[in-house]
């Protein structure tokens, strides 16, 4: 390629073309270098950096970013929150390791296990909403007439065994998946290995899209469901069963008890944030996320009890 260019240069008005070429190359290299230096990526951060792991639904709703930013502005705290959005299972594991120091999760069953191992400490149960069972509009398993979530799951099981339906599971030990597993346990059924039981192993958005494409039933939290529906990504599914008892979904704030998180600055900010979360944070949730997330304010004792029941449900 260069050979051709050089030949060209020698054949026609050699000198002029050479000069032009040199000019172009040098100008563009200067341009590139200037550009690169001007936009040098930031490889350092402010003094106090706190790693946060969170469940994906809270992050994708935007609620977590809102709360953390409002906290920083309101209390003038100089801190950088780095957020890792994963399923609750991984979020709790990272917290227990000390790889992250704060975590926001919604899997009481798993949370209890880590608490019992002494690796994490709960600072607050700060929000709740519901899980809902969604599925094809025609509702072949007829779960909208079921008495509660357990019966709905039984109906899905038997209808699927007859080839009338499918179920998509998160399969990733996220908060949603853990609740789903608890429900199968209570119903005394095991869908594991069945051809109609599909484990996506992915986040809630992808799982819902998969269920939408396959016209299958799935369990989801109401915030993600409404968000995706409003974005027009779900066409074939409808909300079929609610159950404020078995399908209550509580969000909690945890800190790590790992020595990596024992620095006094981190502990300070943790308690400041807890105070914020249960006062001004509650109002923020009520204002901006009504319908998707509800504040717990005033009912802390009740939710603590509900959390314990959910954590031991099996």
């Amino acid at each position, binding site marked *: *390629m*260069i*050979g051709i260019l*050089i030949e060209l240069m020698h054949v026609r008005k050699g000198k002029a073309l050479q000069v032009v070429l040199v000019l172009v190359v040098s100008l563009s290299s200067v341009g590139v270098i200037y550009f*690169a230096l001007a*936009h*040098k*990526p*930031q*490889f350092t*951060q402010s003094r106090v950096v706190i*790693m946060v792991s969170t469940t*994906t639904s809270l992050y*994708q709703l*935007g609620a977590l*970013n809102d709360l953390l930013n409002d906290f920083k502005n309101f209390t003038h705290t100089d801190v950088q929150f*780095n*957020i*890792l*959005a994963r399923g609750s299972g991984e979020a709790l594991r990272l917290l227990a*390791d*000390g*790889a992250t120091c704060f975590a926001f999760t919604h899997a009481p069953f798993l949370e209890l296990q880590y608490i019992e191992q002494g690796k994490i400490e709960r600072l607050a149960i700060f929000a709740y909403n519901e899980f809902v069972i969604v599925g094809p509009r025609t509702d072949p398993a007829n779960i909208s007439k079921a008495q509660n979530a357990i019966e709905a799951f039984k109906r899905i099981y038997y209808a699927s065994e007859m080839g009338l339906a499918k179920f998509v599971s998160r399969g990733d030990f996220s908060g949603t998946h853990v609740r789903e597993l608890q429900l199968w346990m209570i119903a005394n059924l095991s869908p594991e290995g069945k051809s109609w039981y599909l484990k996506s192993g*992915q*986040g809630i*958005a*992808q799982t*819902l*899209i998969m269920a939408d494409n396959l016209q299958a039933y799935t369990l989801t939290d109401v915030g993600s469901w409404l968000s*995706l529906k409003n*974005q027009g*990504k779900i066409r074939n599914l409808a909300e079929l069963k609610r159950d404020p008892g078995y399908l209550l979904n509580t969000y909690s704030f945890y800190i790590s008890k*790992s*020595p*990596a998180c024992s620095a006094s600055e981190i502990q300070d900010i943790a308690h400041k944030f807890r105070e914020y979360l249960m006062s001004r944070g509650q109002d923020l949730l009520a204002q901006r996320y009504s319908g998707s997330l509800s504040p717990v304010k005033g009912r802390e004792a009740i939710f603590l009890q509900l959390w314990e029941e959910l954590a031991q449900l099996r």
Partner: protein
Amino acid sequence: MTEPILSITIRSLYISALASFGAFIVATLISLHISRSKKYIDMLSPIFEALVGVPTTVIGLFVYVLLCPSGPLSFLKLLYTPYAIMFGEFLVALPIAVTYMVRHFYSARESVRELVLSLGSSDEKIITMLVLRELAPVLISSYLVAFSRAIGELGVALIVGGGIEGYTNVLTTAIALQTSMGNYEYAIWIGLVLISITMIIVLIVKLLGEYVIWK
């Protein structure tokens, strides 16, 4: 909530260019050493070839175990920084650079050795220098292959980098994040940016290389 593609791209380029450069240097040294004898090649080459196929997630987990708070290298405090990604991508790019270079080095060594011997000398240093001269294009190509592998990998960047907005978010983690949120179209768009940037870099480096060699 999402960063502009421009800053993500520049970050990707910085991290992967440096990581693959490190892999290139080390791979060159390794290949020069291995290509000395057929025995070495037959023994070690398959190992590197197999390592090319290690899932990047596995490499990412390996680096996580080293850097996590209970790991041996936790005092470096590199977890969830761009430097952790650089280290991981260095490991990802190394096997493929070695595999690419070793065979070429060996055949070039043989022909150069014949030539030099036929001219009456047997100096290993001269042979090595001539081999490097002869193989400049191969060196360039192997750096580009290492670079492509590094910039396109996801497992390491996600696990040890975390994909943190404004800090360790690179093109591949941005694609993964958008995909997990169901924004498939935007994810494809970022993917096209990744492919075009990689191609442009490869073309430019190749051109520059040819120009230098031509002179």
